[in-house]
């Protein structure tokens, strides 16, 4: 209590200083007078009385000083003085301040941005979820060890038997056709268990969530809908009356019962969903019927689990594995050899974090490099400024400032720079926050492109800025204050005393050069990979082809109706001017999804015991190969007569023939799939399916008219003579006109669609090149700073040299040589470091060795050129030093 009171009173002492100072002066004056009076009374002469009194009193100023310290809070007051003085000093050397703050902001901004991405995708993949580190993914394992979704019955058995798992819920991402006859919109949602929200610990923003009993019992009995906050805002203008509203989903009426909180985007990292329906409604919405949930082979659900308190994922995993083993034994007909495991969310195979892991780690490393350069640059700037201010420091030490006070002053200035730098960094980060969407792979589910710059990112940015600024400043401060004042006075803080600091600055410039070399070589290798990958021919002809995806699941067509629709739309499109060819299929090659496969049995081929006979395929219409310009080597294309009534047929690619048929003709061979025997009628050229960098994969095509799945995708391909844009709008309009209740989405040119296949290379090469450029710029700035400063410092010496007859071109060469030495050393070190580091990125490279000599040479030469450029201007200045001016200057 007393202490608190005292502090209050001291804090009050910070104000009204003048009044308080006057009062103290008055008190001292009155006490002195009384003392003099006493002395006079004791018989001294007035002069002697005054002298004795003053003598007795001691130093008035020192009394005042210690009084002031007790009155206020000295640390706070000097801090305030330091800040004040620091701001003035920073204003005085504006160019230093601007460069330092910009450099810092750049480094902090880049790192904060990447940090916010990493956090959103990997560290905090499920925003809004309570104790998210206890939420894990359950995945089914096939006998050969690949992962699969889980069947509803397996999920129920595991949920009921696993005791170390507190709660389990299925989730199934679904495209829902929401709307009425006039307009139907595709909305991405999840079919979830009744306890889904409860398990995640999420409270509704409005209304209520599902209750367990309500949705887990009967199938197709609870047409209830929960919408996302953003959907609520965009479609209902945040009207609270939305609860109870009726919405048609795939033509079935549903009732809105709740709105999810704003930060919640569903259960897949990096993706955002807008609707949730009970899992028991899945059969109805997917038109697969009620059996879907009662068939152990229908492995279609993701499963999320929350670990019981105090249980590690390892313990729970062991329990899940043992129960999965029981299932494999008890339900051998469906589950033989199957197992299940638990994975942390960031290792889960769903969501986009997996494809971002590689690019993000490369990106983080590059950002770290840039940050190191920023650090070196800042240290360099600080050092230069400290040397320039040596006179000031000497003077202050001589006037009695303590070393700690000097250091504090210096660090206060660093902190001011850090504060400005973190503000700038945060501004850059919030400006860049939307760019994540641009870099994410384009998946059919909308990606969570908007990563908020929240408290965590702010904290990260500020901490980073202060850490960098203080690390850069502290070494300098200690060096400055470590000097002996008399030593510094002797040299007068003149340039010659700072040979040591010059060496340090040269060292910093060298390391900046080295780091820039590493960054640039990495960028060069990634660029070369990108160039190599984009040179790969996909095996089909993408330009002038537009594609449109249609969602038939809402239309509840049977096979015949679906076929009629395809033909109607095809004919409509073919009648449009400028259209050369129209075709349709269920899959776009080289797009983000992997498409579907079928387990095949090939007559005359005996697979090895563990051989994977799941062969990927496309369902296509006649004319597809012609449109895509994929040549038919053998046999024929599909015909419109290859329909339900005709014998089933297949077309395979060359790799399929190489692997399963070998020599001899493939046409006429029998292949078993979809419970039926098919005859191969043609062989086509290999083309890329999943990635441009893949080796040829065995692949086959079946006529869409013979295979119909209600849930399959439908893609229309149109080859035109004109622009892609014209084709895109035409496709959009015609598809709408053919059946307004069928949602059309992702209408774009095939070129754009397959650019996804370049994604990894594009994002890595693009971002790392930008960061490499930043690194180069900073390193060049650093070297320029060192050289310019060194010339300015040596003006005197250069003047004497010239006065004594040194040739100007020799002076020029001397300065240039000094810069080149720094650069060459940096390049040598950087090349060695890069040689060690680039081997780690081998997974991200294509068609280029990690130690590619061309890249190494090119980058070294580039850096050398930049270094020469950076030393050129200072060297020119040195050459033009006027000896008279230089000598007079001192």
């Amino acid at each position, binding site marked *: 209590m*007393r202490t608190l009171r005292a502090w209050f009173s001291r804090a009050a002492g910070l104000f009204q200083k003048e009044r308080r100072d006057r009062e103290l002066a*008055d*008190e001292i004056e*009155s006490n002195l007078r*009384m003392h003099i*009076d006493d002395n006079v009374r004791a018989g001294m002469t007035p002069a002697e009385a005054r002298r004795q009194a003053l003598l007795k009193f001691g130093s008035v100023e020192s009394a005042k000083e210690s009084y002031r310290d007790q009155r206020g809070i000295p640390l706070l007051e000097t801090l305030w003085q330091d800040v004040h003085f620091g701001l003035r000093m920073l204003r005085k050397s504006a160019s230093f301040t601007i460069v330092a703050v910009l450099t810092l902001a750049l480094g902090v901004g880049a790192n904060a941005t990447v940090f916010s991405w990493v956090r959103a995708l990997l560290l905090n993949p499920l925003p809004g979820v309570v104790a998210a580190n206890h939420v894990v993914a359950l995945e089914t394992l096939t006998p050969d060890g690949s992962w699969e979704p889980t069947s509803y019955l397996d999920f129920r058995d595991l949920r009921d038997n696993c005791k170390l798992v507190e709660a389990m819920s299925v989730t199934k991402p679904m495209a829902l056709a929401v709307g009425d006859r006039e307009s139907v919109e595709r909305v991405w949602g999840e079919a979830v268990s009744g306890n889904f929200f409860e398990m995640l610990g999420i409270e509704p923003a409005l209304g209520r969530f599902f209750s367990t009993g309500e949705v887990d019992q009967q199938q197709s009995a609870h047409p209830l809908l929960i919408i996302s906050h953003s959907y609520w805002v965009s479609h209902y203008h945040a009207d609270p009356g939305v609860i109870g509203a009726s919405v048609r989903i795939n033509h079935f009426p549903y009732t809105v019962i709740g709105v999810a909180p704003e930060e919640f985007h569903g259960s897949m990292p990096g993706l955002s969903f807008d609707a949730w329906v009970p899992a028991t409604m899945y059969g109805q919405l997917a038109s697969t019927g009620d059996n879907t949930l009662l068939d152990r082979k229908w492995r279609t659900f993701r499963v999320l689990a929350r670990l019981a308190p105090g249980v590690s994922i390892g313990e729970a995993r062991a329990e899940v594995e043992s129960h999965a083993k029981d299932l494999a034994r008890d339900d051998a007909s469906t589950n033989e050899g199957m197992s299940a495991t638990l994975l942390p969310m960031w290792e889960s195979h769903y969501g986009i974090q997996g494809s971002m892991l590689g690019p993000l780690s490369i990106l983080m490393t590059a950002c770290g490099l840039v940050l190191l350069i920023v650090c070196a640059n800042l240290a360099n700037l600080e050092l230069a400024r400290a040397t320039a201010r040596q006179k000031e420091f000497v003077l202050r030490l001589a006037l009695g400032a303590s070393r700690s006070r000097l250091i504090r002053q210096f660090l206060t200035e660093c902190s001011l720079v850090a504060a400005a730098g973190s503000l700038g960094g945060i501004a850059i980060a919030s400006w860049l926050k939307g760019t994540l969407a641009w870099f994410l792979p384009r998946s059919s589910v909308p990606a969570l492109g908007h990563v908020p710059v929240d408290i965590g990112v702010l904290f990260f940015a500020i901490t980073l800025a202060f850490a960098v600024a203080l690390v850069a400043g502290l070494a300098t401060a200690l060096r400055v204050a470590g000097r002996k004042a008399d030593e510094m006075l002797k040299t007068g803080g003149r340039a010659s005393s700072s040979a040591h600091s010059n060496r340090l600055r040269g060292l910093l410039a060298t390391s900046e050069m080295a780091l820039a070399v590493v960054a640039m070589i990495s960028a060069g290798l990634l660029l070369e990979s990108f160039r190599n990958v984009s040179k790969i021919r996909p095996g089909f002809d993408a330009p002038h082809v537009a594609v449109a995806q249609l969602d038939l699941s809402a239309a509840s067509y049977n096979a015949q109706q679906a076929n009629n629709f395809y033909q109607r739309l095809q004919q409509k499109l073919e009648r449009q001017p400028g259209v050369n060819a129209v075709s349709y299929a269920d899959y776009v090659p080289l797009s983000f999804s992997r498409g579907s496969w079928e387990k095949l049995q090939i007559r005359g081929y005996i697979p090895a015991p563990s051989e994977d006979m799941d062969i990927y395929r496309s369902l296509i219409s006649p004319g597809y190969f012609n449109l895509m310009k994929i040549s038919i080597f053998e046999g024929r294309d599909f015909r419109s007569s290859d329909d339900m009534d005709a014998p089933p047929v297949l077309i395979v690619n060359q790799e399929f023939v190489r692997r399963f048929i070998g020599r001899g003709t493939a046409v006429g061979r029998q292949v078993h799939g979809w419970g039926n025997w098919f005859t191969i009628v043609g062989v086509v050229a290999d083309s890329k399916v999943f990635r441009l960098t893949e080796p040829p994969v065995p692949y086959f095509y079946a006529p869409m008219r013979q295979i119909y799945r209600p849930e399959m995708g439908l893609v229309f391909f149109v080859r035109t003579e004109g622009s892609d844009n014209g084709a895109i709008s035409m496709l959009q309009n015609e598809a709408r006109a053919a059946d307004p209740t069928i949602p059309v989405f992702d209408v774009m040119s095939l070129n754009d669609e397959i650019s996804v296949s370049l994604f990894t290379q594009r994002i890595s090469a693009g971002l790392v090149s930008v960061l490499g450029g930043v690194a180069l710029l900073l390193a060049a700035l650093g070297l320029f700073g060192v050289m310019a400063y060194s010339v300015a410092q040596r003006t005197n010496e250069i003047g004497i040299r010239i006065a004594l007859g040194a040739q100007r071109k020799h002076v020029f060469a001397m300065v240039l040589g000094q810069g080149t030495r720094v650069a060459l050393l940096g390049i040598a070190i950087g090349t060695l470091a890069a040689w060690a580091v680039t081997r780690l990125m081998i997974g991200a490279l294509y068609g280029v060795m990690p130690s590619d000599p061309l890249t190494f040479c090119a980058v070294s030469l580039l850096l050398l050129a930049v270094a020469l450029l950076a030393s050129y201007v200072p060297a020119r200045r040195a050459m033009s030093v006027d000896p008279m001016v230089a000598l007079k200057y001192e």
Partner: protein
Amino acid sequence: MTAAKSDVRQGTLALMVLKTLQTMGALHGYGIARRIEQTSGNRLAVNYGTLYPALLKLQQDGYISSEWGVSDNNRKAKYYKLTRAGHKQVEKEVGEWEQTNAILARFLAPDQETQ
């Protein structure tokens, strides 16, 4: 400062000031200093550089209060006096000081422990 006089030991000045004010009632800084020196039989020299901050600290702690008044010989002076909390504090500190003294005395008494 003359060699014969010693400075006031750290931490004891506050108690001396409080005790002085308790005995003398309201008093100005000069008076407090003189009184302490007199009481000590002129063996102590009060340094104003320590006295003023000490007075300020006691004020901040709420043990004394100050007020401008007029001295005996008609000079304007700042008078200090004990507050209610100050009176209590004197009793408390005196008690503590005596206890400390008693303990110290036992330590300093020659060879007491060995006997």
